[in-house]
């Protein structure tokens, strides 16, 4: 039997072919091996992962809705606040005793404190850094400061004194103004109103 007959007998002709005198096998047939299918699978994966990634990004990096911000600015000082500060000072002074600074000194005079309390509402409406203090004779003084300008109103039971100081200008002194502990003298009120900004 010739070799050709063997090939015909075993019916392997379809799988063998003669090309340029060489025997060459044909690759076995496989399912799902086409390039277009691989491309499709790749494309589908790309799209799927892109969608997942975008979803994650949208969730994590999404801008948060604007929160309602609450800012509390210190309210600007007012004339009422100036007087309130002085009143608080006077209340504290009333509770002080002898040698309250730690050194020998007069205790605050009750009549001076009361007179200062009566003067307070009569002060012009000015905005200042204001505190009350006590001098060495037990008399109350009110200090009103606006920047470098400062006024001191010392209130005795029956006399009142004003000192106004501003850099570059002569001081204003009102000494021993009769007062009787009740009505703020008008010229003192005018000096305060004219020199300290309301």
């Amino acid at each position, binding site marked *: 039997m010739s070799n050709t007959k063997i090939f015909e007998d075993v019916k392997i002709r379809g799988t063998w072919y003669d090309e340029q005198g060489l025997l060459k096998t044909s690759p076995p047939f496989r399912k799902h091996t086409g390039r277009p299918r691989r491309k499709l699978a790749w494309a589908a994966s790309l799209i799927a992962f892109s969608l997942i990634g975008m979803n994650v990004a949208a969730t994590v990096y999404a801008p948060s809705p604007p929160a309602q911000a609450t800012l509390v600015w210190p309210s600007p000082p007012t004339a009422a606040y100036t007087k309130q*500060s002085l009143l*608080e*000072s006077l*209340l*504290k*002074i009333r509770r*002080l*005793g*002898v*040698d*309250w*600074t*730690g*050194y*020998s*000194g*007069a205790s605050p005079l009750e009549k001076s404190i009361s007179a200062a309390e009566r003067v307070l509402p009569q002060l012009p409406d000015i905005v200042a850094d204001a*505190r*009350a*203090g*006590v*001098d*060495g*004779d037990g*008399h109350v*003084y009110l*200090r009103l400061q606006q920047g470098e300008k*400062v006024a*001191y109103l*010392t209130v*005795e039971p029956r006399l009142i*004194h*004003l*000192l106004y*100081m501003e850099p570059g200008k*002569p*001081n204003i*002194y*009102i*000494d*021993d103004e009769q007062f009787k502990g009740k009505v703020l003298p008008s010229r003192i009120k005018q000096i305060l109103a004219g020199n300290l900004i309301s």
Partner: protein
Amino acid sequence: MHPPISEAAEPISDEDQVSRAYFEIPGEIDPESHFPFGYDNKADERGESVYWRKYVPLIAGVHERGCRLELVKNDRRKDLGKATIKYTGARTAIVGAIRSIRTQRGHKFAVIHFPEEGDNAHAHILIEPAMGTRVGKLKSNDVRELVSLLVQQFGALDRHDCSTLGASVGVGSADQ
């Protein structure tokens, strides 16, 4: 006119420093109240005590004195049922700066050495009125103006809490 100075008193130079012991006052009260300069009619003067840093070179020595004052004064106050005081620290100024103060009416300060009760560091800041004015006749406004100018010469408060100090009361123990 100043009161007679003891033989132990020395001149204080302008370059030296003095420190004032501060005691707590309510925050609502004007801090210039720390220098009352009340009139002492026995001595005919208006003065406030300070410590001459020549004899208290370390601030700890000033704090020691302040704490001792707190202790002594509070012992008396407790006996009398009065509120106690609390030493809070000290402020320091240059003597020359204090002496250079002049009010518009011509009043000024003197700084003199005044050893007292065995403490060589004790000194006084005294009001020196203008010529023709007696210290007992000074106006309220003059004292206010002087104090207003004086407090500007003192530096920031060097804080101290006596409760953190081991109770050392002897004079001079912290002066070394």
